[in-house]
């Protein structure tokens, strides 16, 4: 029996979702404030010259064209920017600036501190269906530097601190900004506590109210056909032009895997309600967002990397005690997770 198998055996069925080392656990979310005072981002044209600025620039470039890492750390056709609008700058689309200030996050149940770098590693493992870059590696430094630059520039402008964003060492960049020893201009440090900075308005995808009727993939399919299919394809396959998937695949072999946060119905519903369709030419109702989210995440996708052998039901009990379809079947269909696609495959 493997170590993790032993662990599972020991923990049995008493494990609660909150105890688990889920690298894409839900952050506590609030409803969006109508006139929230979101941090405003500096123009990317103001990224400084020099070695630090180059790291920030590389972070931006990897964020909008993550396919540069295909075959190495990325195993699907997605780019970070597909879920984090405006290159991670837009409020209520899980902006990088809010995330950066929410890590390192301490989890008291397992007495483990997750750094910002570990959070990004989780993104590669699950959302990108790939392999996490090594700790301290160039992509992680760059993505951390970009996130930090956005957060610090926004805070400085809000509190009237002029000048360039102070440079940080790679080691400090990778930790994240939620720590007492995070170096801040005095005006910012005085204005907010560490915990207040970690809960900036606009973080995450804001929670929408529970649906009036239980969410339904069948009703969601009608929403999908009417509003989503024209961009994301009849079978959620996305659309490539010149070999580049501009419109991201939502399920199937080229999308996020069963460990990604977006496979939860609530996370997908929150994201969709706030951010889709691109450009917001129409506003779905809360019910429609729940239903279409359920439809999208009730299809087979790449396997959860935490699966041991073929124990889908065990993994489901251990990691999937939330609003999702892993380990369940719809109607006469196969149990989802039993026919999943490969993790980190080479590009076809």
């Amino acid at each position, binding site marked *: 029996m493997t170590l993790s198998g032993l662990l599972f055996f020991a923990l049995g069925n008493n494990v609660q979702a909150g105890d688990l080392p889920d690298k894409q656990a839900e952050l506590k979310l609030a409803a969006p404030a109508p006139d929230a005072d979101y941090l405003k981002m500096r*123009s*990317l*044209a103001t*990224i400084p010259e020099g070695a630090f600025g180059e790291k920030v*620039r590389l972070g*931006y*470039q*990897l*964020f*909008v*064209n993550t396919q540069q890492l295909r075959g190495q750390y990325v195993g699907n056709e997605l780019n970070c*920017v597909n879920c984090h*609008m*405006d*290159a991670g*700058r*837009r409020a209520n689309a899980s902006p990088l600036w809010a995330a950066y200030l929410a890590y390192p996050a301490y989890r008291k149940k397992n007495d483990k501190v997750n750094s910002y770098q570990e959070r990004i590693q989780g993104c590669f493992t699950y959302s990108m269906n790939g392999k996490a870059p090594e700790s301290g590696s160039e992509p992680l430094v760059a993505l951390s530097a970009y996130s930090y630059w956005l957060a610090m520039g926004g805070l400085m402008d809000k509190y009237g601190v002029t000048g360039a964003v102070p440079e940080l060492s790679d080691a400090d960049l990778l930790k994240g900004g939620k720590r007492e020893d995070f170096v801040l201009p005095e005006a910012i440090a005085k204005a907010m506590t560490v915990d207040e900075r970690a809960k900036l308005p606009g973080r995450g995808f804001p929670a929408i109210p529970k649906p009036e009727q239980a969410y339904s993939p069948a009703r969601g399919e009608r929403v999908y056909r*009417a*509003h989503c299919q*024209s*961009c994301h394809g009849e079978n959620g396959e996305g*659309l*490539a*032009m*010149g070999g*580049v998937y*501009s*419109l991201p695949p939502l399920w199937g072999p080229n999308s996020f895997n069963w460990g990604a946060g977006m496979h939860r119905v609530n996370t997908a519903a929150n994201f969709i309600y706030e951010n889709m*369709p*691109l*450009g*917001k*030419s*129409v506003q779905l109702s809360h019910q429609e967002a729940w239903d279409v989210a359920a439809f999208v995440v009730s299809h087979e996708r790449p396997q959860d990397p935490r699966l041991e052998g073929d124990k889908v039901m065990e993994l489901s009990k251990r990691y999937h005690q939330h609003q999702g379809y892993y380990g369940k079947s719809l109607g006469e269909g196969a149990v989802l997770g039993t026919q999943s696609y490969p993790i980190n495959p080479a590009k076809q």
Partner: protein
Amino acid sequence: MLIGVTALFLSSQAMAANEMPPAAALCGSCHGPTGMGIEPIAPRIAGLSSEYIAKQIHLFQQGDRQNPSMTPMAMTVQGEAINQVADYFAAQPVPAFIPVVRGSQTSYQSVAETLVYQGDWQRTLPACVSCHGPSGIGGGQFPRLAGQQASYLKTQLMAWQSGTRKGDIDNMMGNIASKLSQDEIAALADYFAKLK
């Protein structure tokens, strides 16, 4: 090996499609026999997807797109001929160039390039390339913008604004066009027209 097979497939497909179907002759009189367009009479239709061309013919027939010349012309193509015409012009070659992939630059000097590659999210304007593909090469229901005539791109964006062009899902393009200024429209039209 794989490349060879693909090339063979493409060339045999192109050979079949290169024979102009009778219904396309009338189209060719304004758009040119290979659909390269004649500015300012008719836009380039070579290299648009077959799906897009067929849909536009239907939209003209239904009145969701309005143009004094195209409305009666679209009526002359009916039934199976719609797909034949669409396939023929979709298969016509357009000058090749290497598209710019998003993120190759962090910031841009011009208003047009900023909108094309980054959008303006203060106005909830996504980057053009997020639907029209790298450098606006197009695909599926999204028309190719790269190399299209500036005058045509400009009149179309204005038609989306005024509502004389409709027919996409949820008025996505009408909504986006409505947020653009006249200067931005002119700059975008010039930018895409030069990509060839």
